[in-house]
């Protein structure tokens, strides 16, 4: 274990290299590109023996690592935004074929308008694909989740793709100190990839074949069961991680100062650091607040989330994405958890940090203050007052201002 001052992209690349992938294939897209550039350097420097392939699109990149993984070779790709959307056709297939590909998504907004900065609309938009989704708060967690992702994805009880989400620019472009484990430690945590079924000319098999109505429903049922099983496997793997690497691994979620909290914030990714800062400030003022950091968004650990939140009177969900015409995806799911349950807290939904707009302590404090008065469903925080909001009533703008 060595602690190093690294650019996030390099920390992620070193973590990937320690997992010994045989094939790396990607197509560049900001802010992901520096991750695969750093991996290309590691391969070119001879530090990792892997085939590095430049694909002509993200669709091809995902297809190539799908094929490589099917032959029994651990593989890696990274993308974001439009690239992830282009990949999504392949990702649904990878899940259906039960191919445990691992990718990093450097969360970025979706066009139009063209914007290269961070929000979660890209990954949230493929939430129903059957891909495991994990979200990192900082670069240490980003590196750690790479090891976890491979181990969980390749577990025979799971066999599903896994995607590690890192907030674009906030993580890959930031230099911070990260502990990088040794090869021996990673090998002790992550066994070699030995799938039960693979593409082999000596023993021909076909994957993702034609399936009539008499069997298709069962394939979806099995996917659902595998996703549910992944919750247990993530918990087990996080436990093993702590044993092997001798430092904390939160697995599904992290509960920060939630024990006696009346109000619990809920968020994913780098915004949680800012929320923790606000939680500490409010605690100093005597307010009983905490934050639940959701790491594992898919599968959705519903029982664990309910247990973590049930003691609160007020829940404040901050999301970097919205299901347009509806609410934030997290709000919908968390509210549904509390239906037909004895505890019925206020559950607020706030949208913030879209397209790279910083979530600051002021943003979080605003959500806290607003939630004291009433309950919000999909309230946009930090909305500009000087922009013409076509179709929005003037009174509405003033109200939000």
């Amino acid at each position, binding site marked *: 274990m060595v602690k190093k*001052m690294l*650019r996030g992209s390099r920390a992620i690349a070193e973590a990937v290299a320690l997992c010994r992938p045989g094939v790396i294939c990607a197509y560049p897209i*900001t802010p992901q590109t520096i991750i695969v550039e750093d991996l290309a350097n590691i391969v070119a420097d001879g530090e990792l023996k892997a085939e590095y392939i430049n694909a002509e699109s993200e669709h091809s990149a995902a297809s190539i690592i799908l094929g490589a993984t099917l032959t029994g070779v651990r593989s890696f790709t990274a993308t974001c935004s439009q690239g992830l959307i282009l990949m999504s056709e392949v990702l649904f297939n990878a899940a259906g074929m039960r191919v445990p590909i691992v990718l990093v998504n450097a969360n970025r907004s979706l066009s139009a308008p063209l914007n*290269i900065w961070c929000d979660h609309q890209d990954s949230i938009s493929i939430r129903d694909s059957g891909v495991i989704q994990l979200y990192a708060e900082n670069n240490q967690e980003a590196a750690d989740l790479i090891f976890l992702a491979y181990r969980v994805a390749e577990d025979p009880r799971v066999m599903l793709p896994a995607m590690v989400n890192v907030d674009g*620019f*906030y993580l890959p*472009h*930031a*230099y*911070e*100190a990260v502990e990088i484990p040794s090869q021996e430690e990673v090998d002790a945590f992550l066994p070699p990839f030995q799938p039960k079924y693979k593409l082999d000319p000596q023993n021909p098999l076909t994957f993702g074949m034609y399936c009539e109505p008499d069997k298709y429903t069962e394939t979806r049922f099995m996917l659902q069961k595998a996703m549910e099983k992944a919750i247990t496997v993530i918990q087990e793997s996080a436990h093993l991680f702590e044993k092997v690497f001798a430092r904390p691994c939160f697995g599904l979620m992290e509960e920060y100062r939630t024990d006696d909290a009346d109000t619990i914030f809920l968020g994913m990714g*780098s915004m949680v*650091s*800012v929320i*923790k*800062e606000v939680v500490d400030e409010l605690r100093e003022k005597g307010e009983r607040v905490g934050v639940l950091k959701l790491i594992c968004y898919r599968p959705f650990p519903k029982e664990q989330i309910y247990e973590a939140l049930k003691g609160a009177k007020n829940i404040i969900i901050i999301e970097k994405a919205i299901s347009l015409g509806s609410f934030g995806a997290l709000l919908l799911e968390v509210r549904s958890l509390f239906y037909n349950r004895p505890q019925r807290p206020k559950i607020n939904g706030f949208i913030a940090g879209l397209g790279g*707009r*910083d*979530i*600051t*302590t002021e943003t979080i404090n605003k959500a806290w203050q607003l939630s004291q008065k009433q309950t919000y469903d999909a309230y946009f925080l930090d909305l*500009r007052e000087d922009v013409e909001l076509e179709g929005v009533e003037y009174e509405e703008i003033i109200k939000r201002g």
Partner: protein
Amino acid sequence: MIKVKEIRIHGRAGQGAITTAHLIALAAFEEGKEALAFPHFGAERMGAPMNAFVRISTQPIRIRSRILNPDYVLVLDPTLLQEIEDASEAKEEGFFLQRFFDVAKGLKPDGTIIINSPLSPSQIKLSTQAKIITVPASHIAKEILGRADRANTAILGAFAVTGEISLEALKKAAKIRFPGPLGEKNAEAMQRAYDIVKGKD
């Protein structure tokens, strides 16, 4: 309240502002402190004004948003001062401004701004109560590194005068980032700038 020191670097894409931020973070790390360094830019193109940011603390750093009220500002390119007059429209954008065209914007009154300029601080026109330090970083870079557009390490030598990070740690960071003669040369540029600014004090 844990004290976090905030540094904002102004440069043009290609002048090494991100490297400057990295070197400060690396030096802080070498001194046993916590640091977070990160850039902010638009669709990348050489010469466009951009920012890099550094936070230093004795505790883990949790704020990742851009720095609005820095303790220190480092200006790598003197022509960025001219941009202030050209960007009155941008100035009005306030909080939502993509990049900080006004180098002194939000700088704490008890802060320090270090500018790459052959002029004396009294000749610099800036609306700030903060301390102004000037250093002929481009001249130093031209002389020692052979390139005037590599003024960032000389700026860091001047930054060491503030005592926030030691000159030794910054030199060590330069040698880690640039192994071999290049690291030595950059450490030399740091030392030269440090001596010049120290001599003025």
